[in-house]
């Protein structure tokens, strides 16, 4: 159907040049197309207004000892528990080698009496029970995830059940003794 373009032989040097040129052009074109796709991918990352709301400030003054609250942070609940002396001791008494995801209580809190964790079960993302007074807190006095039966202790660490990791600790800073900024 087509005619032959080059007879091989005489055009050898030109052939090489064309190959190089074609190759280089293809490379530039492919790179350009790849870069052009980035804005589309990037547009699905959190937008600026979403990022601007990525931190919340919480007043702790109204949380009595022994109680916990849930606050919304980045569309997820964060549990803030004002721990009792007994709960703090429970968290510190357990030997690290007994833990599924070994982590000392010290490494998970900034102030002993305040435990702040993301309230999302590390198994498949359900919200564990145990924050509101009267809810089942599981066998380790922390939280209990009703979906698949994971038990968390008073440091939010996984003790039994299918969850692989401890409840995540968000970054937070105490602005004063009674206000904390999460995120």
């Amino acid at each position, binding site marked *: *159907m*087509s*005619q032959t373009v080059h007879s091989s032989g005489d055009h050898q040097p030109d052939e090489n040049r064309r190959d190089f040129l074609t190759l280089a052009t293809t490379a530039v*074109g492919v790179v350009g197309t790849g870069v052009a796709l*980035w*804005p*589309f991918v*990037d*547009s*699905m*990352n959190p*937008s*600026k*207004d*979403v990022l601007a709301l990525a931190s919340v400030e919480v007043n702790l003054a109204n949380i009595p000892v022994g109680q916990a609250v849930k606050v919304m942070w980045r569309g997820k609940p964060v549990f803030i528990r004002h721990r009792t002396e007994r709960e703090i001791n429970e968290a510190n008494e357990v030997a690290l080698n007994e833990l599924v995801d070994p982590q000392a209580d010290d490494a998970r809190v900034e102030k002993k009496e305040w435990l702040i964790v993301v309230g999302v079960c590390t198994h498949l993302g359900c919200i564990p029970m145990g924050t509101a007074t009267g809810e089942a807190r599981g066998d380790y006095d922390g939280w209990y995830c009703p979906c698949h039966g994971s038990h968390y202790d008073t440091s939010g660490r996984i003790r039994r059940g299918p969850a692989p990791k401890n409840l995540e600790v968000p970054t937070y800073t105490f602005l004063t003794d009674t206000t904390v900024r999460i995120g």
Partner: protein
Amino acid sequence: MSAPQWNNKVVKWVDDRLPVISMLHHSAYEYPTPKNLSYMWNFGSLAGFVLVTMILTGIFLVMNYTPHTDMAFESVERIMRDVNHGWLIRYIHMNGASMFFICVFIHIFRGLYYGSYKAPREVLWWIGILILLAMMATAFMGYVLPWGQMSFWGATVITNLFSAFPIIGDPLVTWLWGGFSVDNPTLNRFFSLHYLMPFVILGLVVLHVWALHSVRSNNPTGVEIKTPQDSIPFHPYYTIKDLFGLGVFLIFFCAFVFFAPDYLGHPDNYIPANPLVTPPHIVPEWYFLPFYAILRSIDFTILGIPAKLLGVLAMFASIVILFVIPWLDTSKVRSSKFRPVYKWFFWLFVIDTFILGYCGAKAPDDYFMGIPGLKVIVMGQLSTLYYFAHFLVVMPLVGKLERTKPLPASISESVLKEGANA
């Protein structure tokens, strides 16, 4: 064209079961293409490229757009300000609509000049007109989505066109609106259809290319491919030529997107829709201006048919008439290159559409290009008259009366002759 033998086992396995690879190979690789196509033949593939770009940018815009009268304008501004690269995606989409029409209009004028609508390419031409109609509907509904002043009033004016039809007119408009004015239900259905239509266009494009590949490309001489010497395989010759054309086109496109993104738009669309205030000058987007001028130029009654209905009919007729031009054109010769008389009428027609565009942008009582005594409405009427006369009078008559230049015996002969002259 025998089925190619595939060396790759996976390719062969798939192709033996579903010959899609062979099909692509035939149509995008070895498709025998006239060797003398000019750069005017680039605009079809360019239009295809813009269609894909519009679908891609559109899909990502929808991820952040809210089709509700209370939130549409805000969500578009959120795209412009907060979504990462949102301004870029939106400006590409906004200007892409204009680019699509630029490509398609040039593509159509090329078809008119070289007689690409004549037998055996009538169905190919028809599908093209359907694509144009689908594009116009899509562009119109898309323009409503940002819910600015022009969105709202453009939607109001254009949907009101349908009220021109006797008896069914008013119920039809109420049905289109889903209420008693353009409102949230209207916005929602336009959004739904605006998302659907591009895929309808894509389907039509597949048919368009299918039809093209069974009747083969026309070419500047209008003489069909006769011998293997007349054609070259599509790849690499036309793939590279199309890609080069794409590069030039992208520079043009990007100049608008990055340096004059709002140039082709209307400032009023940055004012949120207000059903109580009509902007002083309602003007459609530039690609609708010639049709808008035809609509407005009918300000008289014929045989008791009111002007409003006549205007609407004239506007629809201006596109529908394209369906019958394969039979209105009586010439035995396709390409205007060999039609010394018709060629002039063709250019007159091109100028006519520009004049119509100008008239569509102006208020009817303005003076045409500032010429005293020549009202825009009068100029619009004359241009509308020529628009239809071109198809209904010039095409049949000139085709019969004109003495055409001798045609080359074949594409390769014409190529050799031009080469010798150069």
